[in-house]
């Protein structure tokens, strides 16, 4: 299998001098695979997803490269060099004389012949960014770089905040299709209806005109998935996409993602804190801890023959329906 993208020495800091969110992470995402990235809080798993999608906050400091191998353009691209990006509020006197020049001049001053280090752009995707995430946009020709929305679909944890509350659902999905597939509104709406059928929403015709607040959490997540795949992306990133849902709905959404990924031949990056859930969906699992890649391997190897003590600890901490109840382990009980 060929790599869809190669991540090399990716390092991210959200605040200068702060704790790194990612430390020199290197891994390949293979075309067509289902890769799960698991870890506990502050392991860097969401940072990795955001970095791949080009959604990291403007104030973050990024090092390393992400090389995309998108079949269409056949050209290789890579990511921003270790550069300091503008902080929201640089404090006076805290910028050391040795710090690199400002990022603006850094980008502008780069010779066009050098290997271009870029991150994907964000297309016009209404309401699809969350938590104030600002897309990095570098001035590169649009058709040669991966574009969020067109080449990458992103599903967030909380569908209530990733959908526009005052726009009909059909329009939100159609907008993605129209922007990236160059359809007319009529065609885009028809496409949206097809997508709502594909994500198995009851009564797609009526749902087109519904607003997010009229749907349940699980239904909203289905809409978010429909919008994410509207332009036929090659890569689908699901960042804790089922964590806010109850067990039954979670299983349904996981089944939906599995079906859509296999039907469309998409590559999947599935971010989760739940090793059992990840194992049920992924071919390969990457385990992150404190921003470092602890272990990467085939799902069966990770689950049955983990190499790293931390992976073993995660597996042992899982409370499955076959585990020995803690009640018994403690001995006496009421």
């Amino acid at each position: 299998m060929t790599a869809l993208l190669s991540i090399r020495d990716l390092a991210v800091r959200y605040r200068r001098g702060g704790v790194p969110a990612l430390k020199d992470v290197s891994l390949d995402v293979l075309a067509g695979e289902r890769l799960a990235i698991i870890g506990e809080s502050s392991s860097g798993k969401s940072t990795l997803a955001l970095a791949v999608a080009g959604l990291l906050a403007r104030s973050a400091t990024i090092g390393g490269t992400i090389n995309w191998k998108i079949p269409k353009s056949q050209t290789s691209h890579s990511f921003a060099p270790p550069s300091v990006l503008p902080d929201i509020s640089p404090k006076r006197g805290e910028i050391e004389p040795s710090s690199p020049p400002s990022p603006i001049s850094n980008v502008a001053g780069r010779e066009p012949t050098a290997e271009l280090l870029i991150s994907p752009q964000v297309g016009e995707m209404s309401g699809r960014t969350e938590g104030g995430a600002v897309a990095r946009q570098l001035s590169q020709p649009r058709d040669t770089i991966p574009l969020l929305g067109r080449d990458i679909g992103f599903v967030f944890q909380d569908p209530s905040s990733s959908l526009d509350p005052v726009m009909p659902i059909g329009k939100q999905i159609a907008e993605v299709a129209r922007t990236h597939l160059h359809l007319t509104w009529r065609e885009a709406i028809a496409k949206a209806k097809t997508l709502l059928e594909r994500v198995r929403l009851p009564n797609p015709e009526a749902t087109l005109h519904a607003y997010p607040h009229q749907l349940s959490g699980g239904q909203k997540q289905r809409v978010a998935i429909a919008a994410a795949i509207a332009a036929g992306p090659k890569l689908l990133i699901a960042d804790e996409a089922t964590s806010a849902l109850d067990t039954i709905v979670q299983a349904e959404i996981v089944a939906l993602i599995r079906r859509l990924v296999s039907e469309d031949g998409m590559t999947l990056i599935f971010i989760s804190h739940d090793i059992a859930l990840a194992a049920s969906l992924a071919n390969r699992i990457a385990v992150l801890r404190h921003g470092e890649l602890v272990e990467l391997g085939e799902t069966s190897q990770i689950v049955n023959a983990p190499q790293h003590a931390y992976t073993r600890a995660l597996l042992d901490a899982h409370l499955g329906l076959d585990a020995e109840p803690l009640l018994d382990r403690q001995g006496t009980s009421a």
Partner: protein
Amino acid sequence: MSVLAVSNLTKRYHRGGKPFAAVDEVSFDVGPAETLALAGPSGSGKSTIARLVLRLIEPDAGRIDFEGANFFALSGAALRARRARLQMVFQDPLAAFNPRATVARVLGDPLRIHGIAPRAERPRRIAALLERVGLDTGLAARAIHEISGGQRQRVAIARAIATRPSLIVLDEAVSALDVSVRGQILELLLDLQRQERIAYLFISHDLGVIRAVAHRVVILDAGRIAESGDARAVIADPQSAVGKALVAATPKLVRTSQDAS
């Protein structure tokens, strides 16, 4: 005799002008030092039941007997005094505390309100509570936002046991924690139960966790009890449709070999 006896509890809300029962004729009881789990999909009424049991909201019908007395007969100062025996731990340990509070203030409040320890004795009692939940006594001076999520949940448990309750409602109390921390918190809860004979009303959507710590389980669906019984027996062989769906939906880790451990 049971610590908590709930009978025919009903709470109705209006949704789109139509009344619907969030909790519909629910009855159950919890014995001393027993853990009863409430499980069910979202919207099944488990959190509403928790709020009713704690008298944070008033029911439309039904009765709750707590420690043998009608809990709904109490009001004002009598109700506040009674609350010492019935405590709660929340899902999000950060949201559960005043953002301005220190650990010492959080633990000192229940001791002061219920007259458990005079002012001079409080620091010693706070230190003892911190030790009881496995925290360093030096943590008392720290602000709540300075400590880790796992430590916060331990402080929440320390606050809950400060007034020596007979029942603690745990509303998804381990759902927001990392799995490594979750195990330790569950062990702590079980240890406290054994030592202090505290009963738990354990609300969770995670059958794996329920099976690990609960004696009995009540599975709810749309405000009604779908089935109930011994936790392991129900989860091993659910009879109701929602019970079967919950078991089927729980992610399973299929480990074929246990080498390298």
